[in-house]
């Protein structure tokens, strides 16, 4: 009887250790995810600032990444300021960013097809899409 109790207790300890390790691992992976998502945000914000237009692909994708990161922060309760918000709000923001991304892709495709212009701007200097490299029409 005591033997069985010890075995059950041991298994429980093992599960606890595994759960703790799991949580630590997930925390460190979420840190990595956070850093990995910040780098493209910096790249696209920089390109958007250089393009000086909100109509550019760079600007729109930087909005998507920023909203995604905000959702991630709230979901993981990273920053104390947002800790009063429920993690559900983080998931809802994630959905919002996904919907924004999808609408952005579809609208860009629709207008590119309609006006036979580039879907993704290839010019850094301004918002005008002068080059045909990323054109939806020349493929």
């Amino acid at each position, binding site marked *: 009887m005591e033997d069985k109790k010890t075995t059950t207790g041991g298994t429980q300890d093992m599960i606890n250790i595994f759960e703790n390790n799991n949580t630590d691992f997930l925390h460190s992976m979420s840190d990595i995810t956070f850093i990995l998502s910040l780098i493209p945000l910096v790249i696209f914000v920089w390109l958007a600032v250089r393009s000086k237009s909100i109509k550019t692909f760079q600007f729109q994708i930087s909005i998507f990444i920023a909203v995604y990161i905000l959702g991630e922060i709230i979901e993981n309760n990273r920053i104390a300021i947002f800790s009063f918000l429920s993690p559900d709000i983080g998931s809802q923001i994630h959905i919002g960013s996904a919907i924004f991304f*999808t609408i952005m892709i579809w609208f860009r495709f629709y207008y590119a097809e309609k006006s036979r212009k580039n879907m993704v701007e*290839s010019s850094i200097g301004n918002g005008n899409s002068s080059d045909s490299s990323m054109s939806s029409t020349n493929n």
Partner: protein
Amino acid sequence: MLQTQYYYNLIDAIVYLIAAIIPAYFILKSRKSIIINNDNNNYFRKLTMVLIGFILVQVFYHIAAIIGFRLLAKGFLEPLSMAALLLFGAIYLISMWKIKKRQQEELKT
């Protein structure tokens, strides 16, 4: 898993799948015109492929979360999708530089 989280992940997966249609269409379209294979087309193909990679990994991440593979979803697929987005940003930046450089060279000549 909480019932609400299940629906959030389901909606996310569906929305990303809808987004994947456009890059998939472009990849199929560019396959047909592979004969006109210039640098511009290559940039576009690379960008589209990385973008579709990011979207599909996001879809798999949400599906894994629905099934209950939290470790796989949060520990592997989410960082992988962000790595794909980072690669997309890097390729985009490099292609912009190359195009700008070429435009400047063309202006000089």
